């Protein structure tokens, strides 16, 4: 009897589990037709022009849209996207873009395109944020934070249609970071045809809620706090492009273009550099909105997600230990630094700053604060930038030199200063307080007493802008690969009032150099100028660069073709899933 009982009991208890395990036994091909990405939060909108948060650009920029230009994720160079080639006049003020033909917008339940992508779409997309008189400018708030922060709208004199597939943009001042700005996540191309249909229907705000773009996926549905669903864009232009390439059709096309423009001063490379075709092999893309980092990791482990956003520092080891999970890492476009308030004595003396820099051991800081998830910074620029200088000068840990320099500068032992530690976690500095404590210890060794100061984030930034600090541990994340995006906001004179120049440092030579760098389009010439800038920074040392933090992406080994995009949001175009 008791044998029967045991049998029955075990039967009862195991029924549910047997049923469950059945589902897992043989993974069906169906599960290969969709990618599930565990994202961390709700996007604010589906138009990245309107918001700079990475959640928004993750959910829209590379999935739904294309830009005129793109960054190559490996080299950081600007490569053609919707613009197949471009010309810049000698004075650097006029940019002519040759647009691709046969690019189709999404065909969705709410919009059926009747024409393919052309110059009107480019003009519409740029004019929307550029012109306050544009009918769509004030739809969805009328704020375009990225373009506002770099003042791009003020610098564009005109956006003109030359013919159906050629657009000319005229600038007021020379700006060699212009192309880089057009390649950021925020410079997406919207459909003019869709916009005019919506304004006829009297529902213009739908343009940002029910998006239409040319990207590899089209929008299907969104439920706040739950999911965003996308479907494959079956007419995606990169698909037909790779087919054409095999017939060499595209290259001929290109040759014609270059003949046309022989008289122009310079021809930018237009060969399609991305030979890996970015077509989507999966039918569905789903963003599973999971705010809790631990739950995202758990879902990744059980295979409910194929990839996740922002694994926490503490979870990295767990991911590395799992065989079926891959942790991709890449130096991010960011910099964590220790800035001195150069308007306060004695920090206005470069020798004092150099002494303090020599007093700290950056490698220890990297180990203790970043757990080796960052690389040592020599200059402001991370390795992902094309202007990265590998052989730049770097400060070295040398307490003896530090003591000597301090004594020479007339600093008595027991001198006291403040180190402000930012109160929030950022990739470029996951624990500023801990770093401040370590620095405090190093400074004590050279006879400097440091106190650590922290406020809540808003107050902290306000006081920094007022210049109440002696030194501060903070950092910067850039939006595009252009070096100007680091040098100008961080240390130029103009950046003191806007509050991004934490060192309050104003140096005419420096400003002249970084302005010169924008006046040329020759990459080598710019690189040479930035070398001089780096040298100047090393000598004057308004801030001590500490680290460039890695960016992490965790995904299951079934996914193929997912790469970290250091220049912005995640890209699922061209990602495949195998079992």
């Amino acid at each position, binding site marked *: 009897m008791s044998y029967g009982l045991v049998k029955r*009991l075990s039967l009862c208890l195991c029924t549910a589990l047997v049923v*469950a395990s*059945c*589902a897992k036994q043989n993974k069906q091909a*169906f599960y290969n037709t969709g990618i599930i990405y565990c994202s961390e939060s709700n996007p604010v909108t589906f138009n990245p022009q309107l918001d700079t948060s990475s959640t928004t650009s993750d959910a829209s920029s590379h999935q739904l849209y294309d830009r005129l230009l793109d960054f190559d994720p490996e080299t950081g160079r600007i490569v053609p996207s919707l613009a197949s080639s471009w010309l810049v006049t000698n004075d650097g003020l006029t940019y002519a873009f040759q647009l691709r033909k046969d690019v189709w917008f999404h065909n969705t339940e709410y919009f059926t395109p009747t024409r393919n992508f052309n110059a009107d779409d480019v003009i519409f997309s740029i004019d929307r944020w550029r012109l306050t008189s544009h009918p769509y400018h004030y739809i969805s708030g009328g704020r375009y934070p990225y373009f506002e922060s770099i003042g791009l709208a003020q610098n564009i004199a005109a956006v003109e249609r030359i013919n159906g597939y050629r657009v000319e943009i005229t600038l007021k001042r020379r700006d060699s970071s212009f192309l880089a700005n057009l390649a950021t996540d925020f410079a997406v191309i919207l459909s003019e045809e869709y916009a005019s249909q919506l304004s006829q229907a009297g529902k213009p705000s739908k343009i940002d809620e029910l998006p239409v773009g040319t990207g590899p996926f089209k929008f299907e549905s969104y439920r706040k706090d739950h999911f965003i669903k996308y479907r494959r864009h079956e007419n995606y232009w990169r698909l037909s492009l790779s087919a054409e390439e095999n017939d060499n059709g595209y290259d001929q096309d290109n040759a014609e273009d270059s003949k046309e423009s022989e008289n122009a001063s310079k021809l930018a490379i237009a060969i399609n550099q991305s030979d890996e075709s970015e077509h989507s092999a999966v039918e569905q893309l789903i963003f599973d909105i999971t705010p809790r980092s631990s*739950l995202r990791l758990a*879902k990744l482990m059980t295979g409910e997600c194929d990839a996740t956003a922002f694994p926490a520092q503490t979870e990295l080891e767990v991911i590395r230990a799992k065989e079926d999970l891959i942790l991709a890492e890449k130096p991010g476009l960011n910099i964590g630094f220790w800035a001195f308030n150069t308007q306060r004595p004695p920090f206005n003396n470069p020798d004092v700053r150099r002494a303090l820099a020599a007093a700290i051991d950056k490698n220890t800081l990297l180990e203790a604060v970043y757990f080796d998830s960052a690389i040592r910074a020599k200059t402001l620029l991370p390795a992902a930038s094309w202007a990265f200088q590998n052989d730049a000068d770097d400060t070295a840990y040398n307490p003896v030199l530090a003591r000597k320099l301090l004594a020479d500068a007339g600093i008595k032992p027991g001198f006291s200063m403040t180190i402000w530690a930012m109160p929030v976690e950022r990739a470029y500095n996951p624990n500023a307080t801990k770093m401040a404590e370590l620095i405090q210890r190093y400074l004590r060794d050279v006879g400097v007493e440091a106190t650590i100061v922290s406020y809540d984030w808003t107050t902290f930034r306000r006081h920094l802008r007022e210049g109440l600090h002696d030194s501060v541990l903070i950092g910067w994340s850039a939006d595009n690969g252009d070096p100007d995006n680091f040098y100008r906001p961080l240390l130029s004179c103009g950046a003191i009032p806007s509050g991004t120049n934490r060192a309050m440092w104003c140096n005419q030579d420096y400003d002249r150099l970084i302005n010169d760098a924008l006046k040329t389009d020759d990459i080598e010439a710019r690189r040479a100028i930035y070398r001089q800038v780096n040298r100047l920074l090393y000598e004057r040392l308004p801030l001590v660069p500490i680290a460039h933090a890695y960016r992490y992406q965790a995904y299951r080994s079934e996914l193929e073709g997912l790469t970290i995009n250091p220049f912005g949001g995640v890209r699922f175009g061209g990602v495949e899933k195998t079992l």
Partner: protein
Amino acid sequence: MTQILVRYCTLLILTLLVLTIISFSLAYLFPGDVLENLTGLVPQNEIQRAALEKQFKLDQSYVHQFFYYVSNLLTGDWGYSFTSGLPLRDEVGIAMPATIELATYAMLMALFVGIPMGYYAGIRCYSTSDYLINSASITIYSFPVFWFALLLILIFSLQLDVAPLSGRISLLYNIEPVSGFILLDILLADIENKPLALKDAISHLALPTFAIGAIATASMARITRRSVIDVKHRPYIAAAISRGLSSWQIFFRHILRNALLPILPLMAIQITTLITNAMIVETLFSWPGIGNWLIQAIYQRDYPALRIGMMAVSTVVITLTILVDLFNRVIDPSREKYERATV
């Protein structure tokens, strides 16, 4: 019979009325400004405030406001959630069936596993197998449900990787909610891969159902066992034995039905526990049910959602309890005709 029905209907209506009064007064009991609690809007000036007050009838007497509230409830205008901006009726309409579905399967598990086990233990009372069932059930019954659910996640999802840990079905399936019950919806849906979708949904259901069901099963088994033992010691059983009936005849003719009668009213109590447990377990399994939804509403201080959520949950519980009681009354001839209805 009509009289019984009228009694139960009156009871139901009166209870719901009291609940409505409580949920209505919640708007005034929540901390903060009543208008802000109701609308989620902070009026910028007095004119705006006056307009909003007029719109929400706050300028009228409490009695008026209450009737306005009740008429809104009845017409299906339940207001809007602050956080999602969606009509609360739609949100509750999606979340509530998910919880009921979970509770139903757990209840079925309790019925089809717990009751037979209870009978078995009762018949063979004070034997080894009885002790085994009894101690197993008391052990499971004493598990806190959230802890048990976490244990299941840890073992079956994270270690053995045999069951998924969140949601109702893989997001790859596009299932239109028709009934709100996922299994039913899959059968109704027009999709390919139906068997695969069913399998997927069942694997999602397995752990949360087991977590809630195990505890309900344990208590069901204990109740049944007690009832069977009571019946076994009744004189008519002794009489039946003396008449020389076999033990199977005694079981089917006398014990089975008589032991069921005291179990049914206790089942009504079980429903409340089940739904509460379902709400707790939901949050652990990210099950998109009413419990999870209410927790989110609490985090976000979404007062209209809390008010409606409380109303919806208590309505379901009260209605089910009264229905089960009515059912008992109908099938149990031993109860007096004029006995009062109770909740």
